[in-house]
């Protein structure tokens, strides 16, 4: 029997479950506390208890240790609350997907749980009800790294349904890691938007007093309920201070920092605007919301990959897929020796799009011979698109273009603000 199994059975034998008070007797001395869940990085032989003074400690348990159940925990009753409704305020929908913004800690056990309903989320930031009425839904519950095309489709349909049911706007709380991919995907999938679609996240979970979730969520609610934007946008902290939030276009936004509040930046353009003290200020033109019915156009070709170029990249590192986004060096280059493979893939029907690791700036494969060889081989310029956006767009274009020419034309056409023809000088870091 493994040590862990042995301990679990020992606990089971006295009917001690998480939350119950137990006494651990070791070397004739007893220690009493509430049984806590086992931490992933705790030792195999450790039982964690919460002492009366509030501290958790890990106690090593062996065959000479006794465990006694002192008392079973009293089950509290979770209050359920109704979300208030004010007919004078606009109504928005919150469609939950999981992520840091929707996590909270069970203070009794310390376990981190996803908020099981968007109500819980809305209630953790009650200020939101001063701005608008909220309809809460949960589309799915997952960390954003696990989200894939099927989830984008589900979300797109959810959003369309809510907007077509007459809400003023939609908020999608989302894990920050892949929020940029989802915002790009929704940008291509949703047509004729009759209201703002706002993705929002948090870099500090909402169970912390210093969480950025509250500011981000109220800013998102302001945009969703008060603006006439007809686009998919991301709203996040604009600074490390709690002063303003920034509105980013869904196809131009990227996470640039693993942990800072202001991790999200607009690339190769300036942000649409900002929210400060509850007011929205716009920097640039944006697509206005329509009156018409929101359409979902979610056909996607999933056989698409991303290849990041590096010194020593070999021909066999480029997969045989219907679409490949190359993240090349500089203006759009890859080692010369992989070009024949690229040509071969294109000749066999693959669509290959070039983007840059520089992240900032535009692809131009005319400047150096390596680039010219890539053009000759049939590589399409991704212009000033983010490679994440180009990847999503290629999935969408492959499913919408009948032939190579059409797909290439779609890739080069600005569909959802993903390509800007002019790059302003003030768009770099």
């Amino acid at each position, binding site marked *: 029997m493994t040590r862990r199994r042995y301990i679990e059975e020992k606990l089971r034998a006295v009917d001690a479950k998480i939350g119950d008070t137990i006494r651990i007797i070791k070397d004739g001395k007893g220690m009493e506390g509430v049984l806590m869940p086992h931490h992933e990085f*705790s030792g195999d032989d450790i039982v964690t208890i919460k002492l009366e003074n509030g*501290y958790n400690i890990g106690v090593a348990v062996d065959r000479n240790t006794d465990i006694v159940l002192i008392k079973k925990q009293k089950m509290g009753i979770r209050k359920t609350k109704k979300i208030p409704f004010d007919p004078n305020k606009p109504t928005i929908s919150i469609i939950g997907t999981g992520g840091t913004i929707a996590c909270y800690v069970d203070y009794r056990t310390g376990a981190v749980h996803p908020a099981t309903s968007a109500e819980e989320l809305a209630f953790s930031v009650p200020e939101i009800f001063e701005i608008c009425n909220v309809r809460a839904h949960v589309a799915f519950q997952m960390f954003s790294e696990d989200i894939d095309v099927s989830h984008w489709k589900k979300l797109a349909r959810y959003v369309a349904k809510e907007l077509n049911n007459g809400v003023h706007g939609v908020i999608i709380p989302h894990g920050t890691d892949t929020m940029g991919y989802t915002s790009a995907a929704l940008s291509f999938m949703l047509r004729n938007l009759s209201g703002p679609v706002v993705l929002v996240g948090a870099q500090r979970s909402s169970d912390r007093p210093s969480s950025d979730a509250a500011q981000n969520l109220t800013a998102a609610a302001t945009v969703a309920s008060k603006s006439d934007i007809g686009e998919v946008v991301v709203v996040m902290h604009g600074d490390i201070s709690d002063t303003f939030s920034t509105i980013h276009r869904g196809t131009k936004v990227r996470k640039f920092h693993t942990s*800072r509040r202001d991790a999200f930046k607009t690339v190769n353009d300036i942000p649409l605007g900002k929210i400060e003290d509850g007011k929205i200020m716009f920097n640039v033109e944006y697509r206005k919301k329509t009156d018409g019915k929101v359409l979902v156009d979610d056909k996607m070709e999933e056989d698409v990959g991303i290849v990041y170029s590096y010194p020593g990249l070999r021909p066999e590192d480029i997969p045989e897929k219907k679409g490949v986004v190359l993240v090349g060096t500089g203006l759009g280059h890859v080692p010369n020796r992989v070009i024949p493979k690229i040509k071969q893939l294109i000749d066999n029907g693959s669509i290959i799009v070039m983007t840059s690791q520089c992240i900032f700036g535009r692809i131009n494969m005319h400047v150096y011979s390596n680039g010219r060889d890539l053009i000759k081989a049939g590589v399409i310029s991704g212009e000033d698109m983010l490679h994440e956006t180009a990847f999503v767009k290629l999935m969408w274009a492959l499913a919408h273009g009948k032939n190579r020419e059409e797909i290439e034309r779609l890739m080069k056409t600005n569909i959802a603000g993903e390509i800007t023809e002019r790059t302003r000088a003030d768009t770099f870091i």
Partner: protein
Amino acid sequence: MDYRKIGFKAGLEIHQQLDTNKLFCQCPSKITEDIDYSFTRFLRPTQSEMGDIDQAAVEEAKKNRCFLYTASNQSTCLVEADEEPPHHANKEAINTCLTIAILLNAKPIDEIHFMRKIVIDGSNTSGFQRTALIAINGKIDNVKIQTIALEEDAARKIKEKNKTVNYGLDRLGIPLIEIATSADIKNPEHARKTAEKIGLLLQSTKKVKKGLGTIRQDLNISIQGGARVEIKGIQSLSSISKVAENETKRQMGLIEIKKILKHRIKKGDLENIKHIDLTNTLRKSNSNIIKKLLKNNASCIKAIKLPGFHGLLKQRDTRLGRELAVYARISTDIGGIIHSDELPGYGINEKEKKEIEKILGNKENDAFVIAIGKETTVNNALQAVIKRAKMFLDGVPEEVRRALPDDTTEYMRPLPGAARMYPETDVPPIRITPHHIQWIKKHLPEKIEEKHKRFIKQYNLNEEQTKQIISSGQDDNFEKLAKQFPNLKKVILRTLLNTLPELEKEGIKTENIDNNMLNQVFYALEEEKYAKEAIPKILKYLAQHRQTTIDKAIEACGLKKLSQTEITQIIKKIVDEKKEFIAERGKDSLGPLMGIAMKELRGKADGKIISKILQKEIEKTIISS
């Protein structure tokens, strides 16, 4: 006083900063006034266990203050700014705690779990303080050590203006060891001695910070018939016993006052006390305070009767008046209150006092309190005064008090309930294996008492010198140097104890003088390259010129030691010039001439040699004349 008879009980809580890097990042634990960046934040209450959030708390948070954090790149990184998750807990800090635990005969925890203690006053950017229990059940003499915990120090409050509180981030994250004793302490002197013992033990690890603000002592006190009172922030050892004595007297005084009040009034007498407007009565008073405060047209003067309190408000040990004023100040922004036991005073005369008593209908045993200011402020202040006054009927309230510089205390807040703590999920638990404890036990520092005895014996120092060198923390340096230069023990002692601190006071960066440098300085002295009187000058030069050698320093200071012939030449010249003076004073001229000679030769020659040569030359002159 017979402390046993009055049921005196006290426990200590000692917080000591550790001298390692910060607890959850690699920043140095350094206090600096530099400001490289700043940011502002808000903190909000979080969901309760039951998943809801208290609307009143949200309202409070909205009114709540904005926190301005100012920080230096030298002592902070993204971790302090709450922009990056904590790194692994600092190993040195944990080992120091374990060492202290072993020295205190405590039992280390098998696996350490860091917790988050919710604090939303802005002193932690995260809204919680990280803390972990390291060991339990220790003992020092007859006092039990309940817990030894390791926590992060809070940000340093710089100022508060309007609704913005400015904190410096430099102190945030400095490791703090928290040692809490049981209430086994028997009298004030015992408290001081226990704190001193723990303090020496902490110092023996050589891993604790020194200086003002690096150690904070809290005291829990109760006496029979009194209540548990927690006194925060006692800065020095000598204050501990004084604070404990004063608190004992205060509690005894309050118990006495309770008896008097019970005798004089009934509980209901303090209910429904009316606020009486005295604005018109006192408008013509000559009191400067009243004149000043009434300049604002919105101001009014109100008074309340305090039945039974006459003569009780100004007693030395209890100072009820001050207690009432603190309550008023905490609940409003009023500057203070005036009570009848301090009148006549503040320019209010006996006649006016009598008149107020008449209006309020005061009888012999009744007192009154006046408040001046905006009407709402005055009402709230008087309400707070009544609230506190009622509590005197019950004797000593359980509360948290702040230690003041004069060793008295002042009310701070009610005793907190059990802290709400939940696990710091970003920091993995730390297993303390028996093997690890073995290693700690093998590397225990020498106990201070033992070191004291050994120094006296081994280096032939006296009691006082030994105490000084150990408490200065230079004992290791002294040992190393004294072993190498046994003949220079006294010079080494003086350099470490006096010269270096004096240079530091002058603003010289003595941290630039490392052990290696001191080694060279004493080596050169032993080689008689210069005279010991020149040590301050040389150290000063070395601290200011880091890329130099001892020889260059000696030369640059013009201190090259002179040969016997050179010294004799200089002295001969002096004697020659002062021939007449010598003729006049004879041998008595030695003293004054020595002064002149030293002026010219300090550091270039040993004083004893100078004196010898000078004596000889003077004698020669006397004989030849």
